[in-house]
């Protein structure tokens, strides 16, 4: 199935998600708001996206962007779902009830970005020690032990 067919399929099934869909760099992208994230993901799952590949986040200063990548084995297409969260309240709904794979991925995002997933069964740090302070992949993370690399390039 091509991305254009995916767009038609998506628009036929979920007309309200249709304007959020675009095609960038050969990927189908669905940009949703944080309040509609879980609903959209549920819709995508019923559409046939059965594999959750990754969950990650990007720090854009004022906002965090959550990035999910889903794959439908039957249809042979993949889609990237993006949701922008405000920095002061980085909260989003967990999708562990839809894909158990999200469990560790969401813990990782919580660990490194401090984004709280509501409804996650066990939201703890996963990579860093439990007593770590701060979320290192945030752009404003400060740690005196970091030595900045001199500019060699």
């Amino acid at each position, binding site marked *: 199935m091509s991305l254009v067919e995916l767009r038609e399929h998506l628009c036929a099934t979920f007309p309200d998600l249709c304007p959020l869909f675009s095609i960038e760099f050969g*990927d189908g992208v669905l940009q949703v708001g944080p309040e509609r994230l879980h609903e959209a993901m549920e819709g995508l799952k019923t559409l046939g996206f059965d594999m959750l*590949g990754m969950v*990650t986040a990007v720090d854009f200063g004022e906002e965090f962007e959550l990035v999910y990548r889903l794959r439908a084995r039957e249809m*042979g297409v993949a889609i990237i779902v993006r949701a922008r969260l405000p920095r002061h309240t980085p909260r989003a709904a967990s999708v562990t009830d839809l894909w*158990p*794979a999200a469990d*560790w991925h969401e813990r990782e995002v919580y660990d*490194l970005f401090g984004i709280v997933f509501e409804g996650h069964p066990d939201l703890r740090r996963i990579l*860093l020690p439990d007593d770590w302070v701060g979320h290192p*992949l945030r752009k404003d993370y400060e740690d005196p032990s970091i030595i900045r690399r001199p500019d060699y390039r």
Partner: protein
Amino acid sequence: MSERLVVNIGPSHPSTHGVCRIVVELDGEIVTHAEPIIGHLHRGIEKMAENRTYLQIVPLTDRLDYVGSMYANWAYCRAVERLAGIRVPERAEYIRVIVCELQRIASHMMGIGSAAADTGAFTVFMYAFEQRELVVDLFEALCGSRLTYNYVRPGGVSADLPDGWVDRCRTFIKGHPDAMREIDRMLFGNVIFRARTKGIGVLDAADAVAWGASGPVARGSGVDYDLRRDDPYSMYPRFDFTVPLGERGDSYDRARVRLWECVESCRIVEQALDQLAEYEPGVIMTEGLPRLLAPGRGDAYDHIESARGCLGVYLVSDGGVCPYRMKVRSPAFSNLALLPLLATGHTLSDLIVVLGSLDPVFGEVDR
């Protein structure tokens, strides 16, 4: 009446295959809960990448999956090439396929060998490592390093095949399937190994998909999914190969799928070497690449089928010479998350077998 017992395994334990700590809750000798505690090798590669130029990140990706460095190189380079719109010469793509299939053999030899050693079959580990050393020799002739290759670069590969390399490679892939059949007889026909692995850690196909498992772990459960065939990239559509599948999804099937993948890899390498002969030597890098790559704003994700499954790299660029964000989607991370599901209900010694059959590499799990 039985007593609950909490046992700590690791982080430095010979059968955790790296630095993984597992907190196991036991009822007698039966595992009631196993919780892997990862992150003992979390080196912050994703943060470091934000202050490295695109070319300087390639050596960092070597150290992700250190049993199969070529994969991370390639996955990263594919993401950069997609982001910057670079077209790679076909000869370079063939070389990438060849080295990555050889890398699959080297990596699976480690996986099968250590899984065998976990059940006491140490001899098989020695036999498997002999095959791995042969591949490592080929890589050393190619790029001068035994383990961290830094070979696949954005736009191509760093060096062309040296003189006589193709013949050496052909000699290896001719002998390798026989060595695999020997290991098949020696390990998979062994009564002890069968008793230790059959029916242990059964993963059904629906769980494998829901938990995002990929690679031999998913295929051992009969999930017929291989990115090389189902989301073809590079030169893979031009090769004829089959995807080995397991039936029951137990530890035995997962290990055996790895074995037959090695034989299939030999077939792919052979076809690739035949087709490579038609291309002029020396054209291995895209012409006119700037010394400092600075792709435009945007993001790109690309993935390849590594020895452990779907290895993806997600790059976000703000137009500068360093990526704004790099994320590695590691297959071992997702596969390892299955451990509590698979080990519960088995004995403590079977937990080790299950962990070995998942074949995690902690450089990649923790990044």
